[in-house]
C-alpha cells in the first residue's frame, strides 16, 4: 500500500477534503428549498382534498353545506379523540415523539427525528439505556427545575435540566419543548445488562454544559436578561467544583452523589450563573482542596468582547468601545449556589 508521508494530522485532513473555491453559495436555492418545505403540508392537504372529491361528493348547494358541516364535526371529533389519546399517553408516561411535519432541527432534536422529513434513521446514542434518576431539584429565579441523569445507549452518562414542576423522562428522547433541554453526555465505562462494557467511572473526570435558566428561546426578551446555569458530572472523589467566569468571577459549589438509578461511583454539580456569565474554567477538587482535574475554555478577543456586551446588556447598560474585563474575589457556596460577585 502506497501512502505519502503525512507529517501531521492537519496535512492529512487538508488533502482529505480540499477547500472548494469553485463552488459558489446559492442562497436562492436555500430559499427555494425552504419554500418547498413550507409547501409540503398544503400540498398534502391538496392531495387529500383531491381524494375526497374523487370519492364523489355531489356539488349541490344543500348537500355541500351538509357535507362541510359533517366534515367539521368529524374533524372536531378527531381532534378531541387525538387530544384524549395524547392526554392518556402522557398520563401513562408512554408519550413518544409526535412531531409530525414539525421537524425540529438543532441540538434539541434527537438524530432519529429526521425520519419524518425523509432523512434516514441515525442511531440515537443519547437515548436512555436504563432508568432516569433525579440528581437534584430546586428553584432559580422563580423557576422550578429538575436535574436528571442516566446512562445512554451510546455508553455515556447524560444529564439534562428541565424547568418544570416534575421530571418528564420522555423529554430526553424527543425534541425539546420550552423549558426542557437536550441531554449532554460524557463518556463513561459502565456495566449495563444490555451492554457489554466493563464497570468503570467517568473517562473525563469533570465535564459541564451551561444554558439559560428556563431554557428560553434566546430571541425572547426574557432570555436576554435571564441568569444562566451550569451542570455536569464529576468523579467520585470530587467534593467541590470551582467555576470561573470570563470576567474573573469565581463560584464554588459542593458536589452531590449520583442518583441510585445510575449505580455509578460518581457525583454531579450544578449552579446558577449570573446573566451573561460565560464559564471559562472549571476545577474538580477533593475534600482536601487538591485539584483532581480541570477544564479550560480560553476566549479569543472577539469572544471576550461578545460576552462583555452580553453581560452589559444584562445590566441594562451600553458598553463603551474600550471596556476591559475585571477579576473579582472568589466566594464559596452550597450546591446550586449563586455568587453575584463581579456580576451585574
Amino acid at each position, binding site marked *: *500500500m502506497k*501512502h*505519502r*508521508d*503525512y507529517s501531521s*494530522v492537519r496535512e*492529512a*485532513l487538508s488533502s*482529505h*477534503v480540499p*477547500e*472548494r*473555491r469553485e*463552488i459558489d*453559495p446559492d*442562497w436562492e*436555492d436555500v*430559499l427555494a*428549498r*425552504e419554500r418547498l*418545505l413550507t409547501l409540503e403540508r398544503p400540498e398534502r392537504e391538496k392531495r387529500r382534498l383531491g381524494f375526497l372529491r374523487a370519492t364523489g361528493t355531489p356539488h349541490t348547494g344543500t348537500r355541500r353545506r351538509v357535507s362541510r358541516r359533517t366534515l367539521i364535526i368529524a374533524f372536531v371529533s378527531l381532534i378531541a379523540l387525538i387530544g384524549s389519546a395524547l392526554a392518556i399517553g402522557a398520563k401513562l408516561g408512554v408519550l413518544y415523539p409526535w412531531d409530525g411535519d*414539525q*421537524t*425540529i*432541527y*438543532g*441540538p*434539541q*432534536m434527537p*438524530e432519529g427525528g*429526521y425520519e419524518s*422529513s425523509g432523512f*434516514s434513521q*441515525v442511531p440515537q446514542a*443519547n437515548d436512555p439505556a436504563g432508568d432516569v434518576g433525579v440528581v437534584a431539584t430546586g428553584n432559580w429565579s422563580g423557576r422550578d427545575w429538575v436535574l436528571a441523569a442516566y446512562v445512554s445507549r451510546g455508553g*455515556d452518562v447524560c444529564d439534562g435540566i428541565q424547568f418544570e414542576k416534575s421530571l418528564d423522562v420522555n423529554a430526553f428522547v424527543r*425534541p425539546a419543548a420550552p423549558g426542557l*433541554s437536550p441531554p*449532554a*453526555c*460524557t*463518556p463513561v465505562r459502565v456495566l449495563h445488562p444490555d451492554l457489554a462494557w466493563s464497570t468503570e467511572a467517568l473517562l*473525563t473526570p469533570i*465535564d*459541564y*454544559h451551561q*444554558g439559560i435558566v428556563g431554557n428560553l*428561546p*434566546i430571541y425572547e426578551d426574557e*432570555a436576554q436578561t*435571564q441568569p444562566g446555569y451550569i451542570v455536569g458530572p464529576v468523579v467520585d472523589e470530587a467534593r467541590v467544583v470551582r467555576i470561573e467566569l470570563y470576567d474573573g468571577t469565581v463560584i464554588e459549589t459542593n458536589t452531590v452523589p449520583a442518583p441510585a438509578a445510575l449505580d455509578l461511583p460518581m457525583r454531579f454539580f450544578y449552579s446558577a450563573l449570573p446573566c*451573561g456569565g460565560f464559564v471559562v474554567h472549571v476545577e474538580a477538587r477533593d475534600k482536601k482542596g487538591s485539584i483532581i482535574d480541570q*477544564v479550560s*475554555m480560553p476566549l*479569543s478577543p*472577539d*469572544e471576550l468582547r461578545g460576552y462583555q*456586551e*452580553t453581560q452589559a*446588556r444584562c445590566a441594562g447598560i451600553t458598553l463603551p468601545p474600550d471596556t476591559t474585563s475585571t477579576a473579582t474575589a472568589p466566594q464559596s457556596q452550597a450546591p446550586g449556589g449563586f455568587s453575584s460577585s463581579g456580576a451585574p
Partner: protein
Amino acid sequence: MATENDPDAGTTAEEIERLYRDGFRRYLRVAEAIAGSPESGLDAVQEGFARALRNLDSFRGEARLSTWVWTCVVNAAKGARSRGELALVEEISDSRIVEDRPSGLSDLIASLPERQRTALFLRYYADLDYQAIAAVLGIRVGTVGATLNKAQASLRRKLKEVSP
C-alpha cells in the same frame, strides 16, 4: 467570526443568510467530509440551511445561532451519508469482494468512530471552538478535548502504520 461570537445577533432569516454567505466554504467542507462526496456535501449545506430557516422557532438559548445552524448542517450531512451508504449497499453485488483493510486516507479517516471523525472535521475544517463543538455534537466541553486527542492519536498511529 464576529457572528459566531455575538450573542446580540438576532435570530432572523437575515442573520442566517449572513452566516451562510460568510461561512459557506467551511460549511461545505465539513458537510462534504461527513457526507462523503462534494455533491452530497453541497446538498447537505443547502438542505441544512433551508431547515434552519424553516425551524427557526425551535432555536433555543442553549447554543449560539451559529452553533445551532452548524448542527442543522452536520445532521443533514449525516443523513446524506446514511442515504449514500444505503445506496452503496444496494449496489454491491454478491460477487464483488469488499476489502476490509483500509486502502487510502479516506478509509483511514472513515475508520475512526463517528464522533471522533466529526469532531476533527469541526475543529480542522470549521475552526470551531470546544464549546461550539460540544453543542453541535451534544457532548460536553471536556469530552471534546478527550475526543479530539483520541482522534488525533489514532489517526497519527494509522498514518504511520500505512506509511512506506
